[in-house]
């Protein structure tokens, strides 16, 4: 595995985490109230 490949994998992991958090944030803020009584 070359250095270029490793950097590519790291960038993909970071991007996935950022997108995942951005998707989860509003869903969590709104969705949690349906489980609170």
């Amino acid at each position, binding site marked *: 595995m070359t250095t270029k490949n490793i950097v590519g994998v790291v960038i993909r992991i970071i991007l996935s985490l950022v997108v995942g958090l951005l998707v989860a944030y*509003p869903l969590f*803020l709104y969705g949690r109230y349906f489980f609170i009584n």
Partner: protein
Amino acid sequence: MKKIKWLLYIVAALFLLPVVLISCFLIYWDVRTPPSFEPDAVLNAETWSVTPSLDDIRTQHNSNTELIFFDGYFYLIHAQTKWHLQDINGALVVKRSRDAREWEEVARITVPETDVRDPKLALINGRLFLYFLPNDHFDPMPVTTYWTVSDDGITWETPREMDTMTVIYRSSDGTERYVTGGVWNMWRPKTYDGETWYVVASGKKPEFGARMEVTGHIEGDSVKEEGMMPLSVLFSSTDGIHWEEVSEVYSVFESFEATLEFLPDATAVSTLRVSSMGTAGYAFGNPTSCTLIATAKPPYEEWSYAPSFITRLDGATLFTIGDRMFAAGRNHMGPRFDMGNHMATKRTALFEVKGDRLVHLFDLPSNGDTAYTGVVVRGDDIFISYYTCPIDKDYPWVVGVCFLPKTEVRMARISASGLVTYADRIIAGDR
């Protein structure tokens, strides 16, 4: 195989990008700073927190305030829920105070398994009446009124439906039929002479004749019934329990949350929240959403109207200083083509109510989900209760509704004479 892979990417992006966009907006709205809300010195204004939003997520949303002075105390009542939308575990919290600064909780009013909101108080024949909405819609809709009464502001009767409201059904052939029942949503009762009480309530009557058709979703669509006409009606009562129709205030377009107040010459003034005058639009606003100012002279059977497009005065309270009429309610920051847009900033604000228009005076420290005021005038002091998202934020309305719905109840005190002076300056063009 490569095509399928790209197709999956596109489908995923179509679902994820809107959510990512909402997330980016939420972050931006959470970090941006509010304006200073520096009041003009002539107003001698100050505000303070009455019910802060605590960390318990089940009771973090304090809203829908109402204020009255009774038997030496200020009485404040407000809804307490998990968020703005339906919460069947919500309560109406009653607090009292000698000076409007130090408050003690004296009662909690609930209806089992029912969302309770929009409390309105009236002192009728020495008894403190409470009227409120038992909401059964996820996105709250005014469909009827519950009421209870107290002799001391502490002990309250079990709430029951206000089913003693008599309206007149007029058919196209001129015949009239008196019908007594419920399904009328009362706002705040007021009196001119201390003997007869008046209130404007929204509801429906059987529809006779043609009416203008509206296409597209507008606020209130979900409670429309075939053959029924939404309208606001003026009722009168001498006991606070039995109400009889005086006149139809407005029936051209659906209206809610009708305030009422009397000028010293007995002229009745009402402001009505009109969601649309025939154009479609709800979540992203409506170009004809407005405040309708309705006025009538005794015996309050003929009303004249003037629309104001600078705001849709939601959750408002009217009050008089001398012969001047003022309103504390929601400022939609108009005029704008998207009045009522859920993504827009809204404030609690003071307006002067002229016969033909509203004049915006100033905003109170507020943002996000805000307004639903109560007002008490004592001497030269005007006390205004309202609720708002944290005042160190500058959320749009929707954020305070269901994403970050921590809201506190605040009290504002301003000088009555200062308000008149300030209004004179604004009307003269000196802001």
